[in-house]
């Protein structure tokens, strides 16, 4: 899209441009580009245009449709949309139309945003490449032979390709930040409990958070203010007002103590590490006190994550039994029907995670794996807590590598899981984190730099992200 979400909303609110015109531009770009990229699994052209006309009528009658008036938004397909298919890119939910909207969808609409479509993802958000989708992979707009990252790869690609200025994703172990980094856009995971999970199809409930993907840090900030805040329908929703982050974006980092985390840079590709160190230097030049810090506990985060997340998933996905919604494969009795439905409906990665989680929770292995992983989760949180006695924010890479080739890691789950090594610590601790584009590697592929802050430290996080964005090298990339 031409223009940021903030600029588009401003034009629509002032009557300078109609929401219909904005939505028509988005739909035209999707129609032209998405057959190749495959960011969307469903485009809602008619509904979006109807909604745009409503917004335009509201503006004409003198009322303010809200801070995202007329802004086209893409939603990851694990966010429930009333009456609109919500598949999680899984055969087991093909055609399912949720009877209600997710809280974030309600809040986006109330702010004037216009949902133009649902985006492709790794099935049930399990993956780091958007290749585990029943409708096929999404392509990275910067190089069509490479993955966009995942699991929110469709949302990241939709923003990177310029189809929409804004999208929502979900982040359980990096699923917003990692694709944002690989696609050269901003992706933010809020503090656990800041954004309601009501209407997000659950993967790992103690880790999942919904957050924005956008072309700019300011757009992510506006979106977070819209979707955050207490919701009585999510019992893990914090009793706290939405964080005040829009004002923080331009605040600067002068005098702030920033820790460059050794473990989030030392095992990344040299090009990625070089960009992260360049970002650290830029923050120092902007007045921050930057110092390298080792948080050795982070080394164990990934192993703990790949026991905890599958364990929770194996429990959450037990609900897909062919009884109340979604696919049913008929069989003579109910137990055989459950087996036939789940065997036909789940893809290989989902089956792997369910089995891994079932194993980690099973008698004889619970203490060695699941209980141990929960203690390591405490260890990682303690590592953060110690670092935050000395630092206001932390810095590192978002991903160990830039975008990899489609098909490269599909036969080696462990190699795929290692994509998440820099992002899982924030999920384990429940802290906020953001990926900001910061130049490219030597091949022209985007590099993401990750900023982290303590729980409810969103204002600090956005101040840091704003400073990174202002210091970032000119956008590179091969195509867009």
């Amino acid at each position, binding site marked *: 899209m031409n223009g940021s979400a903030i600029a588009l909303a401003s034009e629509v609110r002032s009557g300078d441009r109609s929401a219909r015109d904005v939505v028509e531009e988005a739909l035209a770009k999707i129609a032209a580009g998405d057959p190749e990229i495959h960011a969307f699994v469903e485009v809602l052209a008619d509904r979006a245009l109807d909604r745009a006309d409503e917004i335009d009528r509201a503006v004409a009658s003198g009322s303010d449709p809200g801070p995202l008036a007329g802004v086209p938004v893409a939603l990851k397909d694990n966010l429930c949309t009333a009456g609109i298919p919500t598949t999680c890119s899984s055969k087991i939910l093909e055609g399912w139309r949720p009877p209600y909207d997710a809280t974030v969808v309600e809040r986006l609409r109330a702010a004037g945003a216009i949902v133009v479509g649902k985006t492709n993802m790794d099935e049930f958000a399990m993956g780091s490449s958007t290749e585990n989708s029943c409708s096929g992979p999404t392509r990275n707009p910067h190089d069509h032979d490479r993955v966009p990252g995942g699991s929110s790869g469709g949302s990241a690609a939709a923003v990177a390709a310029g189809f929409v200025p804004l999208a929502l994703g979900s982040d359980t172990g990096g699923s917003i930040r990692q694709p944002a980094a690989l696609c050269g856009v901003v992706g933010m995971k809020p503090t*656990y409990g800041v954004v309601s999970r009501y209407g997000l199809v659950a993967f790992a409930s103690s880790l999942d958070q919904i957050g924005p993907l956008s072309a700019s840090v300011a757009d992510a900030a506006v979106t977070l203010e819209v979707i955050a805040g207490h919701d*009585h329908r999510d*019992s893990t929703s914090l009793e706290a007002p939405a964080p005040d982050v829009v004002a923080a974006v331009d605040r600067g980092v002068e005098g702030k103590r920033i820790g460059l985390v050794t473990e989030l840079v030392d095992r990344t*590709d040299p090009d990625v590490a070089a960009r992260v160190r360049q970002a650290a230097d830029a923050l120092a030049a902007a007045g921050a006190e930057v110092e390298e810090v080792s948080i050795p506990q982070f080394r164990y985060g990934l192993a703990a994550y790949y026991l905890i997340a599958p364990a929770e998933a194996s429990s959450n996905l037990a609900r897909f039994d062919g009884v109340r919604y979604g696919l049913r494969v008929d069989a003579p*009795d109910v137990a055989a029907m459950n*087996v036939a439905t789940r065997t036909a409906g789940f893809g290989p990665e989902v089956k792997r995670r369910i089995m891994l989680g079932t194993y980690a929770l099973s008698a004889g292995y619970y203490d060695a794996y699941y209980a141990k992983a929960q203690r390591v989760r405490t260890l990682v949180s303690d590592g953060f807590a110690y670092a935050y006695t000395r630092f206001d924010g932390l810095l590192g890479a978002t991903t160990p590598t830039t975008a990899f080739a489609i098909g490269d890691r599909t036969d080696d789950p462990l190699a795929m899981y290692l994509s998440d090594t820099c992002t899982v610590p924030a999920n384990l601790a429940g802290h906020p984190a953001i990926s900001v584009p910061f130049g490219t590697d030597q091949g022209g592929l985007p590099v993401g730099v990750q900023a982290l802050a303590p729980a409810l430290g969103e204002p600090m996080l956005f101040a840091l992200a704003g400073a990174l964005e202002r210091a970032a090298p000119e956008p590179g990339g091969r195509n867009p």
Partner: protein
Amino acid sequence: MSAGGARPPSQPPVIGPEQVAHVARLARLELRDDELTRFTEQLASVLAYAAEIAELDVGDLEPMAHPLPLHNVLREDEPQPTLDRDVVLAEAPATEDRRFRVPRIMGEEP
């Protein structure tokens, strides 16, 4: 491998095909023979990686199930509207008399 730590050297598999078949049964999944072989290799590789925490001495740390110290989040015990029954049933694979219909439950073990 450029990131995330070296893979442990070829350790003996910590999970074998019998265990994978058992876990699949518990999870209500059916595996073909070739799937059983492939999943066993893949799960063994992931568990070998996870084994690096199995050796950590963290016995004195409290297990952390959740990032928030939340307990018993309750609402007032007052009736509130729920989803419309017909709207919910409209998404079911099979219904009868405004209820979910399923194949027989009683009878011989499958």
